[in-house]
């Protein structure tokens, strides 16, 4: 709150030492996590033999695809002011629906059915948390149970095996030296970033999460925007589910596992705010790769993977704490 801003004739301030320090802190807040990722990358390159090999890096990238897709859509939703705890359950339902539809009518129908299932369940979340006025955490916690139950019912609690081996092509086709699953992830991440930064819907997403009352009083259909975020999150979970099924050609109801928590962890590690109205896809991507590198590094160095979870937790606390401190110093 500077009085200087009021008077356009005031000459620009001299750059003082404290201002330079302030700029440095701001830079640290904005890009600290990226710097951390680079350092992690260098350390892993130096301490292990295999990390820097093209094969290993492609694997790391490909293993991040499912989490990454869910996390990118989750970022859009969190910026809009929503939160989806049920993405893991939607992931399972869509994978099962996709597998069954493939067996019944072929891979194309299977993919469409899987995505439609994801979008449909996302819409249920969206309606519940907007028109239904249910709190986002409570609503999607409830539907995560319901959808997980739905996955068990649909699968008959048994393993479903896809008979048509061509379903592998969804994730396993080679394109420009990377797998098609990786390509899908890249395209999806770019699409989410463009949506947020270049479109009217994107501006309305930031507005809805940033100040819901101001957004409404500016003619933004907040409910529609938030519901859209849930549909995107559901569809992304469905896409991720289909990709995972495509790798193994088999699926059961426990496929969802803890993927939603890993995705949320990636969003937070990247430095996005859980409060909405702020954030960026690149942050989430950095978060995804930091988590993937940690996991890979533990693996390559032969360290007990149990410690991985402790480290991940520590990094989340650090990232969220840094965000809170940054907010405090801004007020």
């Amino acid at each position, binding site marked *: *709150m*500077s009085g*200087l801003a*009021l008077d356009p004739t005031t000459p620009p301030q001299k750059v003082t030492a*404290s201002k330079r320090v302030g700029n440095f802190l701001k830079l640290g807040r904005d890009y600290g996590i990226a710097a951390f990722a680079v350092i992690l990358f260098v350390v892993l390159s130096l301490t292990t033999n295999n990390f820097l090999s093209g094969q290993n890096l492609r694997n790391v990238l490909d293993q991040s695809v499912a989490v990454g897709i869910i996390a990118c859509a989750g970022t859009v939703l969190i910026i809009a002011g929503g939160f989806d705890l049920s993405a893991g359950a939607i992931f399972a339902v869509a994978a099962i629906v996709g597998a069954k539809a493939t067996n019944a009518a072929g891979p194309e129908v299977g993919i469409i059915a899987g995505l439609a299932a994801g979008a449909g369940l996302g819409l249920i979340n969206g309606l519940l948390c907007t028109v239904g006025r249910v709190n986002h955490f409570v609503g999607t916690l409830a539907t995560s149970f319901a959808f997980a139950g739905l996955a068990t019912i649909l699968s008959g609690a048994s393993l479903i095996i896809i008979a048509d081996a061509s379903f592998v092509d969804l994730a396993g086709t080679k394109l420009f030296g990377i797998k098609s699953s990786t390509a899908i992830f890249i395209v999806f991440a770019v699409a989410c970033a463009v949506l947020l930064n270049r479109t*009217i819907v994107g501006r309305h997403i930031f*507005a809805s999460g940033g100040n819901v009352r101001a957004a409404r*009083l500016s*003619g933004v259909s907040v409910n529609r925007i938030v519901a859209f975020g849930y549909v995107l999150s559901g569809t992304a979970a469905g896409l991720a589910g289909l990709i995972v099924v495509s790798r193994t050609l088999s699926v059961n109801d426990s496929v969802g596992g803890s993927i939603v928590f890993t995705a949320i962890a990636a969003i937070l590690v990247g430095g996005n705010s859980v409060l909405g109205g702020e954030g960026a896809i690149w942050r989430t991507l950095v978060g995804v790769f930091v988590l993937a590198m940690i996991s890979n590094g533990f693996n390559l160095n032969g360290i007990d993977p149990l410690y991985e979870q402790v480290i991940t937790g520590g990094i989340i606390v650090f990232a969220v704490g840094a965000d809170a401190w940054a907010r405090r110093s801004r007020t």
Partner: protein
Amino acid sequence: MGADTTSEPGAIPIMEVRGLRKSFGGVHAVRGVDLTIRRGTIHAIVGENGAGKSTVGKMIAGVIRPSAGEILLDGREVHLHSPRTAIDSGVAMMDQELAMLSARSVLDNVFLGNETSRHGMLDLNAQSARFEELTASTGFVLDAKTIVGALCVADQQKVEILRAAARDARLIVMDEPTAALDGDESKHLHELIRRMRDAGTTIIFVSHFLEEVLSLADTVTVMRDGLVIQTTPASGESVESLVNAMLGRSLEITFPPRVAPLKDTDPTLEARGLTSIGRFEGIDLALRPGEIVGLAGLVGSGRSEVARALFGADPVDAGSVLIDGKPIRLRSPKDAVRHGIALVPESRKDDGLMMLRSVRENIGLVALRRHARGGFVRSRADRVATSTTLERLSVPTARSESVVSTLSGGNQQKVLFGKWLMFEPRVMLVDEPTRGVDVGAKRAIYELIRELAEDGMAMMIISSELEEILGLADRVVVMHRGRITANLPAAEATEKAILQAAFGMEPQP
């Protein structure tokens, strides 16, 4: 005015501040302030928005930490790390924005952080007894069990005052305590503040209202650009002298006069029998192109509610809204926007702006469709439109990528106007056009309103500052308890006539 307390040689001042500085991310809000606060006085701090007066108040109360400088309490240096340590030292703060637990009772809020306990359990009887004492001594009528969220702002303010009193604060910092109060309530508050002073409490009073400061304070400090310009006995100052000191140049608030004569045209927007049960009843209004209608009334008379209803923000129970003589459906603000209606809300922080986003994003929000193709925003068009709007508002265009919360109150308010300016509405409803805005920005906003009206926009302004209504409006509509009690052309709209109507009195010629 307590001028006799000015000199007590040898007495240690309750607080001394030396070389106090504070910068936020490289911006210096306070640049070396020295203050001496004498015991048992009312010490006002005035200045434009962004002069640093609120920041000084907050540092004194431990809400924010100084970057440099020292604070002496009773002659000893203290480090007020948090509101808690400040309260323990007898310094309390009443914030500009009320800090309340809205879902808890009045009693819980008054004793928040200061609960009476016995063996670790809350002692409700003791608290209730103390509450009775406090209300008796202040003369407030408040039910201890009411949920704070259900109270009007003025009553919530009383809770805040009781809270400071309950903490036995020796020094209370009040930041714009009367901003949300109407005239009568302000008078009550003044009375209370004087009584507290006479009982030995020291008050630091940060305010925009200079008349109020002059009638209340013993000492006035004027700040500008983070520095103290002068500290003088209030008895020797006048509104003009304070404004001059504040601005460093002479600037009288003048209202831009109407240039083109009013034409008798058909109304752009009309309301017929608009009723929302419990809020307002049978509202008939006509807003004509080029005309500024002032909607006056006491706080709580239903003024803002009418504006919100005309904008589709709240549903109505009966009545209709017409644009160009044709009835329209207003289910949400989106419908209103489609019909070219704009609402500049009362609270820019709650209803107006995304405080953590850039100026450009805020300004572009409504009119974005014009700078987009196929749903994609054309960055160039968006940037150009933002710069044009900022120039028109005389906000430095270099500010367009700044986060709104880093702007001064005046510039924030201009951004709020800019959002609708870019949209070019046909009808503009403005609720409190200059709340929390400094003198310079005020004048710019008045000129803008007049200019927009001259260009043919139908304007309605709601204001608690009667001066603003009298200075700007071509016609004044007065509300009292949810009903319109007067509809006066500018020539008949005197202060007396408006006040009589606002209080529901029959007009006495």
